[in-house]
């Protein structure tokens, strides 16, 4: 029979399945079958710890677009914040304009990455069916929408003012746009830490307080690094570069010296080494370059490149750590026995 035309199971069919099971299924364990005859009698003890060492949890199904989105969203969000702060303290007008545009470009690219990751991309608007405070994914969708609107307002009013529309109304709108873009931008750059922190994946959930500041710092250093690479060698980008790489150095040391079984994926294997290399590059390497060669544009650019590369790599490292963590039933059981 053609399987595609097979009729749906009926009540009679379910009865038939039960009768077949009753008639045919034996319980070999009940009579006579010795341990030596069973397929895995050589290592039955392993079932005491977990079920054949199989994962309890399902691993994240997110594709390469998601860590890239975390990275770009962080840059876009912090860029808007930099644009606002520079405007507030009368910074370089070109820097303000560039930072705002970085936010807008990020806001345009991010949804594309997110939609590409969906199993049903055509249904991306379903994300906006509900507003759910208890779902970081729902909040994230709304934060991205809000940020896109705010940064669009900021950039468009900024451009209009530059092109001669200098009435107070436009200046007022620009301030509203820049302020709201800075606020929603900071949410965009930090909520991704909540997104993976508030899950069942142990290595993420047990680092939920570290992830948001870590992701924000990554966004900060990357955003100011890009501005440096674009030629804005102002003191502010130097200071922000020092702050970001300094904080990442402290975090790297903390993750390295802390010993919890649940953090295994942060220290060992593919994810552990990715995070370690990323941490060294965006932390001490970038910091030392800036410290000793920061007086020259070339040194500052090298420090910026290091930080940006490390920040991008670390997003992949964290996702891979989640994959490894989901596949380790023993660390999960150990964690749940302690609490």
């Amino acid at each position: 029979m053609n399987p595609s035309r097979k009729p749906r199971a009926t009540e009679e069919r379910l009865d038939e399945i039960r009768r077949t099971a009753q008639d045919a299924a034996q319980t070999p364990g009940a009579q006579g079958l010795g341990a030596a005859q069973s397929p895995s009698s050589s290592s039955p003890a392993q079932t005491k710890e977990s079920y054949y060492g199989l994962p309890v949890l399902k691993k994240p199904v997110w594709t390469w677009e998601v860590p890239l989105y975390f990275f770009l969203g962080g840059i876009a969000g912090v860029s808007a914040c930099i644009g606002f702060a520079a405007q507030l303290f009368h910074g370089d007008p070109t820097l303000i304009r560039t930072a705002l545009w970085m936010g807008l470009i990020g806001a345009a690219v991010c949804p594309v990455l997110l939609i590409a990751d969906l199993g049903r991309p055509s249904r991306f608007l379903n994300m906006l069916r509900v507003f759910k405070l208890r779902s970081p994914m729902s909040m994230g969708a709304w934060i991205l929408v809000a940020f896109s609107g705010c940064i669009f307002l900021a950039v468009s009013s900024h451009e209009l003012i530059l092109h001669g529309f200098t009435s107070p109304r436009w200046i007022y709108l620009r301030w509203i746009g820049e302020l709201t873009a800075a606020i929603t931008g900071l949410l965009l750059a930090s909520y991704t830490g909540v997104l993976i922190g508030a899950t069942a994946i142990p290595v993420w959930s047990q680092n939920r307080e570290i992830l948001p500041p870590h992701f924000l710092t990554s966004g900060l250093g990357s955003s100011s690094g890009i501005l440096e690479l674009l030629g804005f060698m102002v003191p502010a980008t130097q200071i922000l570069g020092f702050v970001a790489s300094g904080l990442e150095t402290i975090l790297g040391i903390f993750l390295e010296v802390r010993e919890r079984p649940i953090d295994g994926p942060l220290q060992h294997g593919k994810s552990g080494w990715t995070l370690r290399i990323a941490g060294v590059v965006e932390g001490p390497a970038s910091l030392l370059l800036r410290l000793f060669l920061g007086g020259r544009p070339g040194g500052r650019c090298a420090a910026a490149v290091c930080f940006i590369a490390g920040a991008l790599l670390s997003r992949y490292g964290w996702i891979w750590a989640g994959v490894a963590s989901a596949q380790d039933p023993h660390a999960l059981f150990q964690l749940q026995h302690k609490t």
Partner: protein
Amino acid sequence: MTDAATETVSVRKTAFLTDATICIGCKACEVACKEWNEVPEDGLVWSGMSYDNTRSLGASTWRHVLFLEELQVAGPQVADTEDPFRWIFLSDVCKHCANAGCLEACPTGSIVRTEFGSVFVQPDVCNGCGYCVVSCPFGVIDKRSTDGRAFKCTFCYDRQKAGLAPACAKACPTQSIQFGDLETLRERGKERVQELQRRGYQDARIYDPQETSVGGLHAFFVILGEPEAYNLPPAPEVPTAYLKSAWISALVSAVVLLGVVCAAFAF
């Protein structure tokens, strides 16, 4: 925790009581589930793990019979007295948690609580974002790669609506899978554990974590020994329990960062 909409509907809350001590490992539940729900085939492989070639629940496996082989010495389930060895079977299924991680995480509202108290994924709404997959503390729901959407046990919502028992329960030849009223089955589970303990199964217990943030299950189990042996987490937490501390951290660090950036430009 139950939302107001489901409270107003006066339908009884239903449950599964799955009893490992009377399961014969026939897998009729797996077959019935696949046929009734038209769940696609998801790989035919030899695992080498006892007679379990299904391995785990997944997007296309909504009932999964576990085959445990343990070095044990007591009870009639022991085969071969010279080399004592205990064989246990358990039909695992979605737990339909009282506080369900997948339902809380779903950003589209695709995952809902039904009038029977079960957790149901509406396939016409799900857009396959995958957030429920990492939000289930039991590793039940998964994304079907050939389809793109997330799937799990529906608790035979269609059959329950028509007043029928779920396909797996109907096909079970030993009543290892019992379906019925939530509170009645909770009582029956307790009685069953007491009876087993009276008969010498000291390690008989009910698996229904009510003291954690999951707040109890609508599909609970009678098992022998530690839950870990069945890959059942001993103290599962619904991920929403982590929301407060994570958001506080995000907001505090965002405010600090705004201050740092402003200071850098004020300098």
